[in-house]
């Protein structure tokens, strides 16, 4: 238990500090065009790095995962909001899982 608390402190403490220190330290707005551009691209590249390829294994089944992603992707392309796309992806994956159970 003692061990758990020390581990918890390291785990949550290091995660907290790595988030907060840069956030508190950078007060001025960055003017360098290249750094600005880098920071502009970061959110998109982080999201894609988390999604591709691991999302195709998300449900534990490649077919239902890809189905969910394609249907969700189409709705996202048409400009639907985050919640709608998230729910539609789940429902599509779920339906494909159900269909696959039948066969």
């Amino acid at each position, binding site marked *: 238990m003692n*061990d*758990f608390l*020390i*581990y*918890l402190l390291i*785990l*949550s403490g*290091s*995660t907290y500090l*790595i*988030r*907060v*220190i*840069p*956030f*508190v330290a*950078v*007060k001025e*707005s960055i003017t360098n*065009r*290249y750094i*600005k*551009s*880098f*920071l*502009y*691209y*970061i*959110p*998109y*590249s*982080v*999201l*894609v*790095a988390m*999604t*591709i390829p*691991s*999302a195709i294994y*998300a*449900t534990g*089944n490649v077919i*239902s995962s890809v189905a*969910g*992603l394609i249907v*969700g*992707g189409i709705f*996202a392309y048409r*400009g*639907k*909001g*985050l919640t709608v*796309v*998230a*729910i539609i*992806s*789940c*429902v599509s994956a779920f339906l494909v*899982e159900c269909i696959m*159970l039948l066969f």
Partner: protein
Amino acid sequence: MKQYLRGLRLGFPIGLGYLSVSFTFGIMAVSLGFSWYQAVLISMLTLTSAGQLAGIQVMVNPGQYIAMLISQLTINMRYSFMSVSLSQKVSPKFKGIKRWLLGFFITDEIFAVASQENDVEPKLFLGLSTAPWIGWTLGTLLGSLIGNILPEIVMCSLCIAIYGMFLAIVIPPAKKSKPILIVIAITAVLNCILYYVPYLRDIPSGISISICAITASLIGAFLFPIESEEIENE
């Protein structure tokens, strides 16, 4: 209050996604021998997916404090880039103690949604963080208590929620901006290489995400440096 409520609404899908992801974390923690309150405590105080997953795997062995610290720093390094990026987007009101407190909530998804806003107000950010934090905590609690009751097929389908949300964030801007499209294409190719090629695939996912995102964004910054007005108009 209006800002807080708007943030709350924006954060709802993240909370939904987190509920399903942390559900899985709860199940895994219990299966590794943690009690439900330990799992919940970890989630409440850490609020990260890859880091927690790696963390509980280290915690199973006694006394590996240095290994814990090193793995956490590498997996979570991406957050410091996000923090710097976010520091450029927050309103002048977002300073001092507010940064120390609210900085805790910078996760990939909260950051990505906050980045879509100009002049992020502290209240908006707090609202945005509320549902994800509750979802993350509640999901862990449910997963560790009743994880084995829910039908597998329902659980599996929920796991795609978070990725559906990512698509909704990434696709609309990529449709409008060719540089963004190219940057994310480079990211996808790089990450597939790191994911599938032997030896490279042994790199922990938290680190490979950082490598790919940083490399692709650097390439993007040099090939397509953006005018500052363009960024502000987004």
